[in-house]
């Protein structure tokens, strides 16, 4: 998406000047000013990387644990940068109760509750001390989520990636298959969980399993999509950056799951979070094996083995994920008939409200994509301005030093003093701009979150369509079975019996009965999924409204707060230099 912008001088130069800024000691009129940590930003790469980098270094420099605000609110004085916390959780800004560590991060005025993220990052690996600022309301990854009933919470932290080697005797590929496990620590008060805090180690494969089982169990629900697998996993896994990215993604995913009112109480999730050792969920079998299995059964099915009839227990799952190739073919045939057939399919999606909603969601997705892209560009531009302002300040600081050292005339010293005032303010303003941008990233992240959710909505809708397809297929089958039965009746009334005919009639009656049962099941399943869809869409609507309002409010509030501060700084300099305006006016 966003390639790295090749600044004149390149990234190294940018880093160098930022380090310069960090280590700069300015002799101010107000005594020694130590410019503390500034927010490091790697490059102008894509939005997500910008977000994580900004947020992570932001989190690192705003360690919420017990660093008191300096009483002196001079923005250039800041406490020395603490060690980054053990568990870096880039997506949560510091809790509201901790006052500013870096004065360049400003708490918005009190009416902006949105900036607070109560999520606690400091759960120690050994399940140790509580962080001072634990809120029980939100358990979501993005702070702008609407609060749920404050009575139950489920907080998750993913940390401590470790390489582990799979023992070679079990694996097909000889040699050690290294993989990474992550420590997943959970804090909860939901009764089903029993304990209140616990940890497990899981690998990515387990997450895939969890995700697949949830999709099966919660058809029609808007389930947050899991992080993607990597194509060349073992190669990519070596890199620290990738592992870190994945850790972040996993944490986000689990937190989203924990935010879903139904899924947070699911067995699958609970088992994933709580059960030590091997994950006790049936693993997903890959497509190839399924096909092989299905192909093995196919001949029998084609020969009319009655065990191949779709039974009620089968219809509650979609055809696609299963081993039943015959069913797959039948449903495929049905869907083709639906699309190209002259007659209407036996049952139809009639819910106009649903169709309208689908269209509306399509529009929403388009606009979200656009807005997310523009937000990315905005953040990049804000960062650019902040950085260049800082560089300008640095250049003037150098000039100031130069003039002071080389001064022969007093007027040079006067100029140097004027220049210094401008330079220090420029550096200060630059840091405010950076702070503003870090906050902007957080707020506008909501757009991205909802884009991801749109994907989940598609899945929920396709659950519905495939359930409908199953119903339609069964209906078609039933109608053809019935016509076969009729034919048999007319045939048997003409020809004098015979056992074969009777057997066939009985068999057909059985098949029809089973198929009727299956049809009933399928219809019930379809209705159930429809209802799930409806509830979930309602939930999405109300959450979305809240989240979007909070996003806008947060964005606007931050602009106000930071711009006010920046305005004050520059006004000071303008007043100081006012005499020049009069002189040459």
């Amino acid at each position: 998406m966003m390639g790295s912008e090749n600044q004149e001088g390149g990234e190294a130069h940018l880093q160098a000047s930022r380090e310069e800024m960090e280590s700069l000691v300015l002799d101010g009129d107000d005594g020694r000013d130590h410019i503390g940590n500034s927010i490091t930003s790697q490059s102008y790469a894509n939005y997500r990387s910008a977000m994580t980098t900004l947020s992570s270094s932001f989190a690192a420099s705003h360690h919420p644990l017990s660093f008191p605000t300096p009483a002196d609110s001079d923005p250039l004085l800041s406490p020395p940068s603490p060690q980054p916390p053990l568990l870096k959780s880039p997506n949560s800004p510091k809790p509201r109760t901790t006052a500013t560590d870096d004065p360049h991060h400003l708490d918005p005025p009190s009416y902006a509750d949105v900036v607070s993220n109560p999520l606690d990052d400091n759960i120690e690996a050994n399940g140790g001390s509580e962080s001072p600022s634990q809120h029980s309301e939100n358990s979501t990854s993005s702070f702008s989520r609407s609060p749920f009933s404050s009575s139950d919470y489920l907080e998750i932290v993913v940390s401590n990636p470790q390489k582990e080697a799979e023992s070679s005797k079990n694996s097909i590929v000889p040699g050690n298959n290294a993989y990474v496990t992550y420590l997943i620590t959970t804090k909860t008060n939901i009764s089903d969980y029993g304990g209140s805090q616990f940890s497990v180690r899981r690998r990515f494969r387990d997450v895939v399993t969890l995700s697949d089982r949830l999709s099966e169990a919660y058809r029609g629900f808007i389930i947050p999509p899991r992080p993607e697998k990597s194509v060349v996993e073992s190669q990519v896994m070596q890199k620290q950056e990738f592992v870190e990215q994945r850790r972040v993604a996993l944490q986000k995913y689990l937190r989203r799951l924990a935010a879903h009112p139904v899924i947070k109480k699911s067995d699958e999730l609970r088992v994933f979070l709580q059960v030590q050792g091997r994950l006790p969920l049936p693993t997903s079998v890959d497509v190839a094996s399924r096909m092989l299995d299905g192909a093995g059964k196919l001949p029998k099915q084609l020969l009319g083995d009655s065990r191949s009839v779709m039974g009620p227990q089968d219809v509650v799952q979609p055809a696609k994920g299963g081993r039943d190739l015959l069913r797959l073919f039948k449903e495929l045939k049905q869907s083709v008939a639906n699309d190209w057939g002259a007659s209407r399919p036996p049952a139809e999606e009639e819910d106009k409200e649903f169709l309208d909603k689908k269209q509306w969601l399509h529009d929403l997705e388009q606009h979200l994509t656009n807005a997310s892209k523009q937000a990315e560009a905005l953040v990049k531009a804000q960062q650019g301005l902040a950085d260049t302002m800082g560089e300008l300040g640095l250049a003037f600081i150098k000039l100031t030093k130069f003039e002071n050292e080389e001064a022969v005339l007093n007027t040079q010293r006067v100029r140097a003093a004027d220049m210094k005032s401008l330079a220090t303010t420029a550096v200060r303003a630059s840091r405010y701009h950076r702070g503003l941008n870090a906050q902007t990233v957080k707020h506008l992240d909501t757009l991205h979150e909802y884009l991801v959710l749109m994907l989940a909505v598609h899945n929920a809708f396709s659950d519905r369509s495939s359930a409908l397809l199953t119903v339609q297929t069964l209906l078609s089958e039933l109608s053809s079975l019935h016509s076969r039965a009729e034919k048999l009746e007319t045939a048997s009334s003409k020809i004098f019996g015979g056992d074969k005919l009777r057997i066939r009639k009985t068999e057909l009656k059985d098949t029809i009965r089973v198929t009727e049962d299956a049809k009933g099941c399928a219809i019930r399943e379809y209705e159930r999924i429809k209802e799930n869809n409806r509830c979930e869409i309602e939930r999405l609507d109300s959450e979305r409204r809240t989240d979007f309002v909070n996003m806008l409010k947060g964005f606007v509030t931050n602009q106000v707060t930071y711009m006010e501060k920046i305005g004050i700084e520059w006004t000071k300099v303008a007043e100081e230099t006012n005499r020049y305006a009069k002189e040459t006016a």
Partner: protein
Amino acid sequence: MIPTLQRSGSGSTQSPRSPSSQEPFLSVSVIDPAKMGNGVQAYISYKVITKTNLPDYQGPEKIVIRRYSDFVWLRDRLFEKYKGIFIPPLPEKSTVEKFRFTAEFIEMRRQALDIFVNRIASHHILQQSEDLRIFLQADEQTMERARSQEIGIFKKKPADLMQIFKDVQSKVSDVVLGKEKPVEESTPEYEKLKRYIFELEDHLAEAQKHAYRLVKRHRELGQSLSEFGKAVKLLGTCEDNALGKVFSEVGDKAEIVSVKMQREAHHLLMNFEESLKDYVRAVQSIKATIAERANAFKQQCELAETIKFKEIDLNKLRLTRSEKLADAEREYDVLKADGEEATRRFEAIVQLMNEEIVRFQEQKTLDMGLAFHEFAKGQAHLANGIAEAWRSLLPKLEACASS
């Protein structure tokens, strides 16, 4: 001798102020850029208005039309005649075709030309120049004739000019490194000055580079704010009445803020970045004067050498009572006179430069002070404006959030 004139505002875009008293004044402004001609030969012409009560000038007001190369002519003439004085710098010739006629470029150039002429008009020595009078008063044909006759230092190929600068620069470093060359002025103060000028240019160039980038950043941010606003408005179409309206207003506000950004970008460019550029040019002009001084010094030294040798020859001739003695003595006298002239010239340059440096530094403090003031004022205005714009939305957002 015209006494020192009242300083007219440098960089003013208004028409010159009328004087309040009867003391002599000379006030100039460069306005009304107009594109003339077509295609490759197209150029910009400017109106130069002179308001004065000086006897040599056609007063009280005279308007002439001038183009960029006329200004170059004036600068070159002054540089030739007034060695030792820091001639005010001109804006660069534009090499990139497509920028030559953008409104922004034309305005930047006009501003710089206005400042140029005004600085000359307010310099106590330069304002007396005949060339200035011609420039301000002559009709266009006379001007064109004068311009085409010019053979000045800047008519030399740029390579030569660079060579001169390089020579001066290498000589500075030679002395700094201790490799003293005989034909080079090397008093510690002068060395310090040369070093100062060269380093100053580097520092200023860097600052100016960042200033220009800052202008660009403002523009980019303005642009992306505008796009973002549009995207937000679109997103709002998915929402119902109350929320949809809020989205729409946020989008509108983003557009307003975007406009403010663009305005500040322009203000930054004209009032800050250009001032820095002007500072850089001024320093480069000083370097040219330094080169002139080096030339004068070299001439003086060479003549002194020649005179010494001539003396030796003379004495030889005296001893041998040669008939060439009379001629030789005449030549010697001429040489002596030349030598004295060269020394006078050199010392004049030194004297002028000393005064000019002081004048330059003081002027720059004022110029920079104003530039800083404008910068700070612009940034404050922008920040406060943005805060105010967004603040007006907060009550509505608050209401929406709590409902």
